[in-house]
């Protein structure tokens, strides 16, 4: 067949309707696996599958080619049913070189499909990947359905008329592969063709080459007769509405912009680049027309301080970072809580301690967020549970910061930041306004006058006549706001600051079950990005008749008011966390419950099966 197939052309390949699949693309950092994954995901989204994605890339920008530490991966789970995680084990693994095979094969499902670029399995690459024997030639791949294709050669042949250099021609391999995957999963090519045009528009040779590669990969599926089937994944039954695909960092940024608009305040973001938080800075820096100002500060200390300065002057101050930057910000956060100004701190957690695992996920900043200041330094801490939920929780962080005149730490993590899911776009008119009142009345004014209900102090900003006053980190007199070293006053102020944060509990939703009954044998209580895996695991266990429920904390300081009571309704409580048991410590100390920890710190999210196994174990013990 010479003609490139179009997505609608009928062919006599049987199309097997499947519920869904987990596909992982793995290759060298330079192989364009993230782009391939993104495009493959966009196609699944347009086919209205439910989905979740997770990219897994190396910390090195351009690790030496062919090495195992230079392997970049992208996993997508798409289905005609609800999807909660990017999937445990891929059904299909695309490995663009030996190193990608070496590092990813152990995750592939037994019997799974393995698509290999045999063109890269030469002596040099095999050696770099640490293979003594070519795995294509021994029996090590037995038990998988192996499709070994010289993708390099196929691609070079497909693009030979476009005049690209050999090196550039090689770089079109990912689109060839994508074309093949589109054929297998019966996806239309048009959206990607359009994307290529808009992406490479200025270089017509690249447009032509990538299109040729994409079409050639697709045609290969039709003609090569190595495939028995094409698959089709029907649309998922989801709530009516308008959807888009969204990643956690984008959702966080959009939530912040939305919140600033709802509050009618200009937003000032102070940030210093750090993985995996930089994209929040990048995203927000595009929104000047929304009254957003971003400042790339000289360090994280300056970033938090300038955000605080902006809040002092009556804007909404926000700072975003990850673990090491969080550590640097702590003194600034302490000042913010002492002068009682609104401030939102987004901590997109990554593996630590120290520089740790910059591109991997972890939830080990919880205690740092809740307790990490000198002296008694209470702040509000909340956490997002899914990429889309980052939007909601970013708005919530802003609402609480402004209402209670306090720093609010929003915890997300690398998994949420880089993962993506379909997101029902909210109707702007339905988002509740955030009420902000600046003090202007000089009668009886002092800067630490409190609202009796919220204990928030009044916010008087520079430029307001007759309200000139001084604030600072020194202790303040409760009744005048002036400096005070009086012993009783200090205790009173420490307690007032603590009571203000504790009082937020009456302003947040009570904890409800995500899955399962309100009482029973076992409660699995999670927080943050473990949501999807826990939810799916608990559902599966319940399907097998086990008495287990799932609840998920989005508010970590203060806890929801009914948390203690919820815990009491279950015989046992299991707390899975990507740390050594930080929430479990907080629960035990707050409620004296024998909550049990399931800890994992590998820079990787929980697998559903790990959680299922643990749930079964606990219920059997």
């Amino acid at each position, binding site marked *: 067949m010479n003609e490139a197939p179009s997505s609608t052309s009928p062919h006599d390949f049987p199309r097997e309707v499947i519920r869904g699949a987990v596909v992982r693309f793995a290759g060298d950092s330079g192989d364009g696996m993230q782009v391939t994954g993104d495009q493959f995901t966009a196609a699944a989204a347009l086919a209205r599958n439910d989905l979740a994605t997770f990219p897994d890339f190396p910390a090195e920008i351009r690790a030496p080619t062919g090495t195992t530490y230079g392997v970049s991966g992208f996993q997508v789970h798409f289905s005609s049913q609800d999807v909660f995680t990017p999937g445990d084990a891929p059904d299909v693994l695309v490995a663009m070189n030996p190193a990608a095979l070496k590092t990813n094969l152990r995750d592939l499902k037994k019997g799974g499909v393995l698509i290999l670029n045999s063109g890269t399995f030469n002596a040099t690459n095999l050696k770099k990947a640490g293979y003594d024997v070519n795995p294509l030639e021994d029996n090590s791949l037995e038990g998988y359905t192996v499709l070994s294709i010289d993708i390099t050669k196929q691609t070079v042949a497909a693009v030979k008329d476009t005049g690209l250099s050999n090196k550039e021609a090689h770089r079109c391999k990912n689109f060839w592969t994508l074309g093949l995957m589109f054929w297998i999963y019966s996806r239309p090519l048009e959206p990607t063709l359009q994307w290529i045009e808009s992406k490479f528009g200025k270089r017509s040779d690249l447009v032509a080459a990538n299109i040729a590669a994409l079409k050639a990969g697709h045609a290969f599926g039709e003609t090569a007769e190595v495939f028995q089937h094409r698959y089709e994944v029907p649309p998922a039954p989801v709530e009516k509405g308008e959807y888009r695909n969204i990643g956690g960092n984008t959702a966080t940024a959009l939530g912040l912009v939305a919140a600033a608009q709802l509050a009618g305040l200009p937003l000032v973001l102070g940030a210093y680049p750090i993985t995996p938080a930089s994209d929040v800075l990048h995203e927000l820096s595009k929104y000047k027309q929304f009254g957003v100002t971003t400042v790339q500060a000289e360090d994280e200390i300056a970033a938090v301080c300038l955000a605080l*300065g902006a809040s002092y002057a009556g804007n909404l101050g926000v700072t975003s970072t990850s673990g090491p930057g969080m550590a640097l910000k702590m003194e600034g956060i302490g000042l913010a809580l002492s002068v009682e100004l609104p401030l939102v701190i987004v901590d997109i957690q990554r593996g630590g301690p120290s520089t740790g695992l910059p591109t991997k996920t972890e939830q080990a900043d919880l205690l740092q967020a809740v307790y990490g200041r000198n002296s008694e330094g209470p702040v509000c801490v909340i956490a997002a549970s899914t990429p889309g939920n980052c939007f909601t929780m970013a708005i919530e962080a802003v609402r609480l910061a402004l209402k209670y005149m306090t720093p609010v730490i929003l915890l997300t993590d690398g998994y949420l930041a880089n993962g993506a899911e379909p997101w029902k776009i909210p109707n702007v008119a339905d988002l509740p306004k955030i009420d902000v009142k600046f003090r202007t009345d000089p009668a009886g004014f002092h800067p630490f006058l409190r609202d009796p209900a919220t204990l928030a102090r009044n916010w008087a900003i520079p430029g307001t006549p007759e309200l000139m006053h*001084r604030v600072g980190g020194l202790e303040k007199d409760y009744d005048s706001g002036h400096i005070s070293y009086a012993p009783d006053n200090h205790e009173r102020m420490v307690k007032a600051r603590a009571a203000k944060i504790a009082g937020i509990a009456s302003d947040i939703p009570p904890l409800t079950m995500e899955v399962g009954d309100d009482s029973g044998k076992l409660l699995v209580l999670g927080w943050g990005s473990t949501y999807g895996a826990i939810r799916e695991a608990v559902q599966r266990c319940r399907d097998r008749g086990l008495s287990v429920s799932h609840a998920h904390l989005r508010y970590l300081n203060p806890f929801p008011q009914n948390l203690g009571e919820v815990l009491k309704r279950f015989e046992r409580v299991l707390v899975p966390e990507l740390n050594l048991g930080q929430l479990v410590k907080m629960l035990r100390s707050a409620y004296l419950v024998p909550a049990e920890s399931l800890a994992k710190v590998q820079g990787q999210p929980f697998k559903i099966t790990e959680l299922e196994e643990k749930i079964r174990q606990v219920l059997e013990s």
Partner: protein
Amino acid sequence: MSDLISPTKLTKKDFETDQDVRWCPGCGDYSILANVQRVMPEFGIARENIVWVSGIGCSSRFPYYMNTYGFHTIHGRAPAVALGIKVANPELSVWLATGDGDGLSIGGNHLMHCLRRNLDVKILMFNNRIYGLTKGQYSPTSELGKVTKSTPAGSVDQPVDPASFALGVNASFVARSIDTEAQHLSDVLRRAAAHVGTAFTEIYQNCNVFNDGAFDAFTDKAVRAERQVRVEHGKPLLFGANNDKGLRLNPRTLALEVVTVGDGGVALSEVLVHDETNPAFGQLLARMPFPEFPVAIGVLHASQRPTYDGTLRAQQKAAREKLGQGDLAKLLRGGSTWTI
């Protein structure tokens, strides 16, 4: 900027607060405070549009004593807080009080970035060459070999000269004055206030408790004429009780030399004429070794370039003109969407 202007004429009293000033009796900070309170009314800015920001140190208590808005922040970070204030509201007149430790040790990084960015704020550095508040350890401006509680055998690090540092990181305004030289300090403050951009003023300040007399060698009445050169734009660099000494540039070594001017000395025409717009002058004057040379005080450098906050505002305006007021509903919909 018209709303910045104070509708009524203010006086020194208007800038005083009801707070007890808690510096040690005799501290140089008092005279700086009095001086600032005296000249601020001249600027005609309404008090509510003035913000004093400071870090931590004796000098950083300054905002508590000024009846304007004030923010006593954390050690070294005042320039960062001021950046946020100025970004949020560029209309405000923002002033910083910092010390040699606050500004050049823990906060050296922020000070550098503030100066190079040319944020439109006025910085007063109270240089007493000591850590006052923590009771007398040596500071980054203490002379080599300084004996203090933390350096009983003498400090081993070379000091930094604040003005030279500021010029080195491309400050647009650098001046020096002295706590007790009321007239001179007032003049420098007026110049700083009028400057658009970061105005950095180093003030030699006597800490009579932990570093008393640190500047006597050139501030004492008996010697100051011989040991200070008061620089003024467009005027020859002359000093001495009879204005009979001058600074000349040796073109071969590119170094300054002290010459006698007039009878038995060189002609006045050989003496350098100060050009504050040329940072090379500032740097030569800031780095003159003492006591071989006099100490230069006055405006060492002043030049104009766009400010950080001004440029930011312009970008914002341009974005609004090009893209219109942001539409949130459109933003949330992003690239491709699908409807079910």
